[in-house]
């Protein structure tokens, strides 16, 4: 089992995840890949073998009014191959998880088309890196738009219209308010798309009352034999959140939302989760917590202390 973290290394804050310059300063995918190379060097030294890359590696690459940025993936064929070679050498499992503006099931054809374009680009990056089938682009179903069944069907239809390389790379995750595990299983039955289980989302939205083990097993079963599934894990944020008001107003304590991610992984929840999953197919875990690689290191230490038998199953 591999543990991964998301985008920005906090142990090494000087490392950037991508070229974040504005268009006026000539950002480029090749610069992002150089940042990624430096991050990979850190991952190798820290023995971290799973990593979610920034979805903004290729800046402005699908911006409709900036055609000068559209050719970046093709321009970086050699650099993508090289970074992919480094990833394979390190045994790194890589992925993307594009932001909420990617909505494949939007009833707005333009937005759905733009989303498909963004997904195509991310899939092309993974293909350019010559990564195996474990490297996926994880997306959500999208919005309900007043008609759940139509929204589900629209995702399935738009999936079928995606480029073959994108279909091959895409994986689908349930969310915490709109579409649960049963919904993504419906889409899987029609498209064959692989499913990503998220422990917190399942706690927050589980209309079918599936046990976590049932829901996890169902998602794991959608991955082809020989390809390790992946799941997302996070703990809910329990701290109170104070909103700073204007100079003449008292600060307000905001009501919490359990969908907010905690800084660290609660090790006892994590251990319970792994014990619950024992006997199921093996999988990798992406940690979606705010302390990122700091949290990953902490979790390793926690597992060694509180569940050494589980710590032995960690890779890297």
């Amino acid at each position: 089992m591999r543990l991964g973290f998301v985008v920005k290394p906090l142990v090494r804050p000087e490392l950037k995840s991508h070229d974040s310059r504005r268009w006026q300063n000539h950002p480029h995918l090749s610069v992002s890949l150089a940042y990624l190379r430096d991050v990979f060097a850190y991952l190798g030294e820290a023995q971290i073998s799973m990593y979610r890359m920034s979805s903004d590696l290729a800046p402005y690459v699908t911006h409709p009014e900036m055609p000068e940025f559209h050719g970046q993936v093709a321009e970086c064929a050699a650099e993508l191959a090289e970074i992919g070679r480094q990833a394979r050498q390190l045994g790194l499992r890589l992925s993307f998880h594009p932001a909420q503006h990617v909505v494949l099931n939007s009833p707005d054809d333009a937005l759905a088309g733009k989303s498909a374009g963004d997904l195509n680009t991310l899939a092309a990056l993974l293909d350019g890196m010559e990564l195996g089938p474990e490297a996926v682009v994880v997306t959500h179903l999208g919005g309900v738009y007043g008609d759940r069944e139509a929204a589900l069907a629209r995702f399935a239809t738009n999936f079928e219209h995606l480029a073959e390389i994108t279909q091959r790379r895409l994986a689908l995750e349930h969310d915490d308010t709109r579409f649960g595990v049963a919904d993504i299983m419906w889409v899987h039955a029609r498209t064959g798309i692989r499913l990503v289980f998220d422990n917190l989302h399942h706690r927050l939205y589980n209309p079918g009352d599936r046990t976590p083990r049932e829901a996890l097993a169902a998602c794991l079963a959608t991955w082809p034999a020989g390809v390790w599934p992946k799941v997302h894990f996070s703990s809910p944020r329990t701290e109170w959140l104070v909103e700073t008001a204007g100079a003449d107003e008292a600060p307000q304590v905001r009501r919490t939302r359990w969908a907010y991610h905690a800084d660290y992984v609660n090790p006892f929840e994590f251990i319970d989760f792994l014990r619950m999953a024992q006997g199921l197919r093996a999988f990798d875990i992406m940690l979606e917590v705010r302390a990122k690689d700091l949290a990953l290191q902490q979790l390793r230490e926690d597992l060694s202390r509180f569940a050494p038998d589980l710590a032995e199953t960690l890779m890297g």
Partner: protein
Amino acid sequence: MRDLSEQALSPVLVVVLNDPADLARAREQGWYRIPLDRAPRRIAAEYLAFYQTGAFPPGERWSVRWIASVRGYHIATRRELIPAEPDHPRADDRYYRVELGALEPLPHAIPSRWLRRITFIPTTLTRLLGAVEINDLWIKSTAQERLWAALKQADVEAERQYPLREDLPEYVADFALICRQGKVAVIVDDESREEDELREAPPPDYLLTAGDWIAMHVSCASLSADPGGWTARLIDLATALDGVLPVTGSPVR
């Protein structure tokens, strides 16, 4: 010159120019090369700054004077980069061709007080624009930064990241005092437990003794707690060694 201070935290890589032709190439053709198989841990940056070695004419050498924005990193063989030298022994080696914007002069040159050799230095634009000399460019742990500030305040002319032996550049003293009657190497033993987690291992003792270094080992916690006290100890030691050598104008080897 544009207002570079808008991008204060932008990463900068200080690279070494051993040949004036490389600076001319950066200026006229807009690129610099880094060999893939000998590249440092960090190469990515928004700017390259150029440290000009002794190969440059007097008045230009041993200093950083130019900066250029980075536009891209593309992989190419030496043969592709320099077609005029197709039979060079490294013609098939691969390089990052770092594509550059226009070279811009720094507001003031950043000299190496000791005219020393350096390797790549990852830093930030803030550091670069505020640097008085090369030693100001390194960004290390809070403990090291505190000692550096205390040494400067006390006018102690120390060197940072100083190679203990020229043929083993990975082994450095975190601080070095080159005195008339000896050399002092300050080694921060547990540096790896602070921000610079993955630093090279501290130099082995045999390197220190074989090079006639007087080693002073110190912990991050101790440095952070009492940078002034460590500075005083270093001043005492330097005094006992007849004081820090004045800058001679000759390259330090």
